[in-house]
């Protein structure tokens, strides 16, 4: 029976691929993660920014901790599924996750259905990236600048393309409508953000808002034109001519614009389950800091268009706490964006 070894080998290979194989566990008293297998959970399907960031980080973080870091994609419920799971995971350092912070904090603020975690309770390891959102339109369309949007040349309401309620792009649509008093509506139902962008490109919908990184190719290619930046446009030549949300809102809305900008810029961060031992949390935070602040790593990340914007775990935690104290008017807006 030559088949059995073959099948067994196949099964073993699959176990390894799916990450079921586990290295021998260290003893319970030490905080060291040496020799352990650490799961870095990505709450989205393979492909896309989160996955790329995680796969770039995993081997280096593993080296630094003398452990094996594997990336596990756990898509579902827009990231809430994996976040709920992390909130209940053993806080022994072997489970970490890469969060979409605007979605993570936003859904908690809005009290979105399905959220079972206390957003302040996680052991934040550090911020990996932070970038502004950019509102763009098709190069071929009638709109050339943000003032065209504000002037409302068109009789019809301005239309934002988005996937579904609760997505970052939907939030932007709702917030801009309210803060700038736009005659606008959000067209939802696109299956992916990329498809929503295609809707704009074909001229069916006017605007689309998403993180700078995911739009960079479109902007560089000249197919799309940037209109408005939500956040800082520092160091981003392509955005030089765009106004910034915080600068164009009426004074009485300035606080809301600040809240939204802070939410957008909370970026992508790594976190562990609530209740990690302080010494171990420091160990992981330290390793993470060493990896991402290494100039060589940062340069390679920049090269592959996944630029690093580091903040310490403590800074992330403080930022989360501050955002959770956002003004009531902003929470109301988010509730609208989540359809709560």
């Amino acid at each position, binding site marked *: 029976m030559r088949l059995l070894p073959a099948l067994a080998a196949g099964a073993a290979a699959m176990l390894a691929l799916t990450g079921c194989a586990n290295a021998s566990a260290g003893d319970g008293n030490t905080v060291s993660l040496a020799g352990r297998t650490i799961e870095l959970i990505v709450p989205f399907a393979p492909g896309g920014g989160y996955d790329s960031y995680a*796969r770039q980080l995993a081997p280096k973080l593993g080296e630094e901790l003398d452990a094996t870091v594997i990336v*596990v994609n756990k898509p579902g419920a827009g990231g809430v599924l994996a976040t709920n799971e992390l909130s209940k995971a053993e806080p022994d350092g072997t489970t970490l996750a890469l969060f979409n912070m605007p979605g993570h904090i936003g859904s908690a603020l809005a009290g979105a259905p399905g959220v079972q975690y206390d957003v302040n309770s996680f052991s934040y390891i550090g911020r990996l990236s932070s970038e502004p959102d950019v509102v763009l339109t098709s190069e071929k369309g009638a709109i050339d600048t943000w003032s065209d949007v504000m002037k409302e040349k068109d009789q019809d309401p301005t239309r934002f393309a988005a996937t579904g309620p609760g997505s970052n792009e939907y939030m932007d649509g709702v917030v801009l409508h309210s803060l700038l008093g736009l005659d606008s509506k959000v067209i939802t*139902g696109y299956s992916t953000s990329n*498809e929503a962008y*295609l809707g704009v490109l*074909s001229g069916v919908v006017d605007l689309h808002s998403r993180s700078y990184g995911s739009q960079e*190719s479109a902007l560089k290619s000249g197919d799309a034109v940037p209109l408005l930046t939500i956040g800082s446009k520092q160091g981003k030549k392509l955005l030089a001519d765009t106004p910034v949300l915080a600068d164009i809102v009426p004074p009485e809305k300035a606080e809301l614009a600040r809240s939204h900008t802070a939410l957008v810029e909370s970026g992508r961060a790594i976190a562990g389950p609530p209740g990690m031992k302080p010494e171990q949390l420091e160990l992981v935070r330290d390793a993470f800091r060493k990896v991402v602040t290494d100039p060589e790593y940062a340069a390679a990340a920049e090269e592959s268009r996944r630029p690093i914007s580091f903040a310490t775990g403590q800074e992330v935690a403080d930022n989360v706490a501050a955002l959770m104290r956002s003004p009531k008017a902003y929470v109301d807006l988010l509730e609208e964006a989540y359809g709560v």
Partner: protein
Amino acid sequence: MLEQLGSALQQVVAPDSLAMLLLGVAIGFVVGILPGLGGAVTLALLIPITFGMDPVPAFSLLLGMYVVCAVAGDFTSVLFGIPGEASAAAMVLDGFPLNKKGQAGRALGAALASSVIGAVFGVAVLTALIPVLSPLVLMIGPPELFAIGLLGLAFVASLSGKNMFKGSIMAALGVLLSLVGLDPNTGIPRYTFGSLELWEGIGIVPVVVGLLGGAELLQIMLDKDNRTRHHGRPKVGGIRTGVLETAKHWFLVVRASAIGVAVGIVPGLGGSMAQFIAYGHAKQTSKKPERFGRGAIEGVIASGATSTAKDGGALVPTIAFGVPSSVSMAVLLGAFVILGLDPGPSMLTDDLDVTLSMVWIVVLATVAAAALGYVLLRPLTHLTRVKGRVLVPSLILLLTLGAYSESNSFANVLVMLLFLAVGVVAIRWDWPRVPLLLGLVLGAILERYFILSHSIYDWEWLGRPSVIAIIAVALLLVVSQILRALRKPRTAVDTPRTKEGAAV
């Protein structure tokens, strides 16, 4: 253009690229054969290896691996009745019955030959369309997608086997199942029973794995005396027959490839729809449609050609706009960005050589995979002679891992088991399974694009000429099928029903 095609070929056959291509082919072959373990997951695992590589060797590895998965998946489909990939489920429908008749070689010969032609056709269309890529993709909006969804649904009847009524019920059930999950418009959970796992709907991979693969396996297991399995040596010698039959049905290969490319080009439809439309079309246009599901070689040919042709189509929006039409393409797009390429107009001007090198990679990888498949055909066919009590548990293990690994979710294993049970019941009482799959895939498409069309155009979109034309074709299809069923002589029903003759 010709000159650039030549220089692109030179880049692909450069030693480092070629080495990567062959590595990709080897990995893709293993991944393709293992049921359920998808190309997308493997692509994601390979991405870090490409850091720092030049674009052409990197794509040789990634794209080479990915296209080979579809080719290798045919082996699993034909030999065990388990789809190696969700987008190759239609291969099971006739490939497996042929194997049970002892004609595995003939089926695999046809599958390999049609896969190669499909792949070549797919990228040939891609190359020919390069000057008009952008306007072409932009022409198709939500209203057209809705109409195409309806057209797909019109194939239910021809995929229903003998009983159109049963088929329609199963399709309706599939559409109902597609409603599970978050409402794409309001974000309200529907029929999720408090389980977050169901928010994104019922995944197509666990359903295909359970309904088609698992159910077939359980049949083997429940059948104590192995009646359903072929005894003795499967005829491997039929390979040449299979290849020749593919050549004979060249026009079908072209049509099936065209369907694959067309569906692949449109982001939002997804590859799992193409195969069923092509299969339904093959049956519709066959002189002997009653043989479909019992081992019709045309069914194998249509599925084989579509499974590889769709990738050529899917590359179009990925290259032209950076809009991937599947998870695998999304991972490939990640590679674009890492390698410093900008999907968009520059891929058709400055980086045209990279685009054209992809064309060659697809062609060479498919040919290499077919050659490898030809060599390994004999040893692989021996697998079917392994006793059921050894084979079934091993395969069930692989199926479970396949269902799990798609999104690392145990809930998907439960979904797989549930549909395995549904599949066994359907086989036992002769209810067709494919319409349920089609309903599940199309239900989501129909709902999504109906709502999008309505919120963008109100009701105006129903009057668009393209929409009217596609819906008219769908109606014609339904009417012709009904007429055909009514006219069919009653005697056909009296044919003794064999296991092979079970509805698909």
